[in-house]
């Protein structure tokens, strides 16, 4: 009973009917979706290849003895050499760095969130400086550390405290200067993480504290900061994870090719895991024979930095969940 002319929609004058879209297969969407999905997959595959290679080759060579003995007399000796001095050196420099960077980073974040007007040009300048610091190449930090900390500060300490003609004590590469250089490098990491934590704290908590008669500083110290501890911790761990694997900034500020003893004072040089990976990769007398040593060292370094990163991610996740409950 229905005729074709009744099914067709009445046509407005001047508009031509177009065929229904879904009738033809949308190649453009299909290819776009496929290409971007493939890109994602490829990146994950690259990551898996790198990690897989290092874990599979490295794991059989990591032993308790390897981690807990020194370098013996020859650091390329596959049977006897261990990496305890490098683990010690890397740990010492990141701990010292944390002690320097945490107060500076946390106080800056407190100023930015609690005191500064959000839109003032001055705040913009601080933020710009923080962002810029985050993008400075690590070798430039190395140059800066050598020129500023070692030559300028160290040199001046020496000229003030040492008798004339005595050898350099502070005016040479040292644990202290490597840590200070890394602290400058990781400052943005701590600032950004702490700021995020402080901003997530509900304004109501601060207002309640102020309403009860607490001063602004008391509010910050007693109410705001305790809530922000997980965030500050995340920042510190991320900074340590970033710094633990960095080699370029410590090349001229403290890392030693080889040392018979562990560093005893802040003005000693130290051996370092990342730098040791570099040495084993490029200076080995026989790369095939020391391959097992190299892979084991890389695996330890990678585990160290990855564990730190994962711990930071977990703490941050917990913190965000708790903050959502508070709000």
């Amino acid at each position: 009973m229905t005729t074709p002319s009744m099914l067709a929609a009445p046509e407005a004058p001047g508009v031509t009917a177009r065929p229904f879209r879904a009738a033809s297969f949308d190649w453009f969407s299909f290819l776009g979706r496929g290409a971007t999905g493939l890109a994602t997959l490829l990146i994950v595959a690259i990551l898996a290849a790198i990690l897989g290679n290092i874990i599979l080759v490295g794991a059989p060579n990591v032993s308790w003895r390897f981690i807990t003995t020194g370098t013996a007399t020859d650091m390329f000796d596959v049977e006897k050499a261990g990496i305890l001095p490098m683990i010690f050196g890397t740990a010492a420099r990141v701990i010292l760095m944390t002690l320097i960077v945490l107060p500076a980073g946390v106080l800056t974040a407190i100023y930015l969130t609690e005191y500064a007007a959000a839109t003032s040009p001055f705040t913009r300048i601080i933020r710009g400086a923080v962002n810029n610091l985050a993008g400075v190449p690590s070798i430039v930090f190395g140059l800066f550390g050598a020129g500023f900390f070692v030559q300028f500060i160290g040199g001046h300490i020496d000229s003030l405290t040492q008798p004339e003609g005595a050898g350099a004590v502070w005016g040479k590469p040292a644990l202290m200067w490597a840590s200070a250089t890394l602290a400058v490098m990781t400052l943005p990491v701590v600032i950004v993480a702490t700021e995020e934590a402080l901003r997530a704290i509900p304004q109501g908590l601060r207002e309640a504290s102020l309403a009860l008669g607490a001063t602004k500083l008391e509010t910050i110290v007693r109410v705001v900061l305790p809530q922000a501890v997980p965030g500050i911790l995340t920042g510190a761990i991320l900074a340590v994870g970033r710094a633990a694997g960095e080699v370029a900034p410590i090349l001229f500020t403290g890392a030693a090719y080889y040392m018979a003893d562990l560093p005893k004072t802040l003005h000693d040089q130290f051996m370092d895991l990342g730098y040791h990976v570099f040495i084993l990769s490029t200076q080995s007398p026989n790369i095939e024979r020391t391959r097992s040593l190299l892979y084991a060292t890389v695996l330890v370094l990678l585990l160290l930095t990855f564990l730190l990163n994962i711990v930071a991610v977990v703490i941050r996740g917990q913190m965000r969940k708790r903050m959502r409950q508070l709000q």
Partner: protein
Amino acid sequence: MGLKRGHRARPLEWICEKLIFLVSLTSILMVFLIFVFIGREALPVIFGHTNTALVQKVIPLERMDQLGPAELQEYLNLSPAQFKELDRESIRALMEVRVEYVKEHSEEPDARINTTSWRYLLGPQQWAGYSKPEYIWQPVSDVPKYNIVPLIIGSLKVTLVALVFSVPLALGAAIYVSQLARPRVREIAKPVIELLAGIPSVVLGFFALIVMATVLQRVFGYESRLNALCAGIALGFSVIPVVFSIAEDALTSVPRSYVQAALSLGASQWRAAWQVVLPAALPGVFAAIALGFGRAIGETMIVLMASGNASIVSGSILDSTRTITATIAAELGEVVFGSPHYRILFLIGVMLFAVTFLTNLSADIIMHRLKGRLEGRR
């Protein structure tokens, strides 16, 4: 009025707040200090106060007594402290050595050239024994040659390879993860890709040097095992998480309503992402690429280990390459403090810092404006 007296009533609090303010200036101070202290070491080269010519002016021994101590010290290239320790006899001996030295070298064709002047840092020069003018970085030789053109070309070449390899991958993944993937896939893919940023660059360098170089050589069958291609791809691994994070952030900050509007008009998810979200977030994508560029040109350990480090001028990515960063890392440990070579390494450091500073600054401004626009602040 009583409200305003708060600070004066509690001096300790006032001091603490001023202290917090002062500490917050640290980052500004540090950026400033980096410029000052790297620039300071490079200044003598920038203003042409260094001289590496083997043959310089000679003062005859007889005139020694007519010169003041300051002039003698400058003539012998000594620091004030070194000069103070020398007695008359050793100064005389040094002057004799100088006269001998100059006599010995005066026949050599390149001996009168100050290789640290800008002309020789940037322009080609036909050195003795070469058949045509060339750009040469050869800081340890009788006539040290400090032409920085090979290093700049090397850095740009490796950076270009890294960007060509990583930007399409990272942008594709950013579009997929932020617009197309199901929430469960998204929640896994994002942290996994960002995990790539957690791999220390020395480990990526190791991987490129020990594993990738061999594989790539076997696949492409080229001659030099370490080259710009190998270093560039490894460098790309470290650029991917940078470009991905920023681009993903920019794409995600495009309001959801844009997509919903496109979908309701009958667009597919991909068309909405490609034709609506991507154009809206385009400045952010540029910022991501700029930051990726800054990361790539400043990366040190990967290129130091995987690029082969031969400072030759060549357009081919299959040749061994030496970059600015690798040069600083490889040579600063061995130079004499305060020597022309030392100063030139700081000079290329300043150039590197200036380039990354400008890239970061423009990326920062672009992102700020983009977010302002998308959130309707403008």
